[in-house]
């Protein structure tokens, strides 16, 4: 059986185009490895957050971190499953350099039957000097349908956590 990571490597450009927002902000795949993904957003004037500094918006970094984390989870799975972000914690270390592309490396370091745990770093030039770092948790086998995360959490007996 083809693992998601092999499929993702073959279909890298299409995988991103399948997500309209990822395609809209121009996300690109740099590399996909088992449980690891590196994605990039090229600098564009309409993605700037603070016109005084000319730096890409924090929100773009948020979207890139979220997406790259999700891709690393996919690359860690043995079979395709729908996933949903449960939470995402982002620390902003420093502003990105003006006019620079942003890259993001995410590593899915733990998979349980229901949850995937991910760490990620976003950087402009040097991975050792990150712009932002993130820690995320994803629900696995999230049911398709309207309240994805909710129904998945209810299936885990965690219903009250989302409907207090």
């Amino acid at each position: 059986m083809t693992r998601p990571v092999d499929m993702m490597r073959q279909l890298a450009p299409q995988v991103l185009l399948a997500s309209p927002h990822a395609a809209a902000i121009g996300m690109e795949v740099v590399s996909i490895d088992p449980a690891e993904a590196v994605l990039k957003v090229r600098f564009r004037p309409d993605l700037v957050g603070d016109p005084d500094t000319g730096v890409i918006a924090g929100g773009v970094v948020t979207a890139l971190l979220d997406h790259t984390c999700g891709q690393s989870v996919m690359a860690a799975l043995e079979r395709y499953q729908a996933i949903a972000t449960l939470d995402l914690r982002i620390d902003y270390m420093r502003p990105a350099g003006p006019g620079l592309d942003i890259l993001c490396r995410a590593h899915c370091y733990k998979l349980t039957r229901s949850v995937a745990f991910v760490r990620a770093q976003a950087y402009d030039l040097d991975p050792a000097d990150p712009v932002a770092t993130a820690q995320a948790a994803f629900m696995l086998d999230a049911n398709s349908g309207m309240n994805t995360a909710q129904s998945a959490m209810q299936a885990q007996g965690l219903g009250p956590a989302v409907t207090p």
Partner: protein
Amino acid sequence: MTAAVDLNARLAEILERIPYARYLGVRAELAGDEMTAILPFSQHLIGNPTLPAIHGGVIGAFMEMTAVAQLSVSQVSASTGLVRQPRTIDVTIEYLRSGRPQATFARATIKRAGRRIANVQVEAWQDTRSAPIAALHGHFLIAPRDEA
């Protein structure tokens, strides 16, 4: 009276000045000192076309922008003379429900605003405010005029 007019104009100006806010299509409305941010649905916000659902990153970015806009129009910034955009230090985003392809709203509550750091909570919802689709809790650096 004039203060309210000024705040509305200031809010529009703040959002208009952020290219990424224009790109997402974020608007905001003020009722007194209470601000509601609005993210009208648009196809380019979709993350998962099979559900379909709005991209989680977009919802996170929208809530972060709501916090920044609320800080910018609040009395806090008026008294400290905020001249620079608040900078995000950290955010924790909880995803509660998938964002359906329709308008999303958000409101921010400034839990505490100190001299340099503000602690802000944001909730985003679609049909029902009591059934939020996501929440954000973050810290922001608000630099007073003399440090800007």
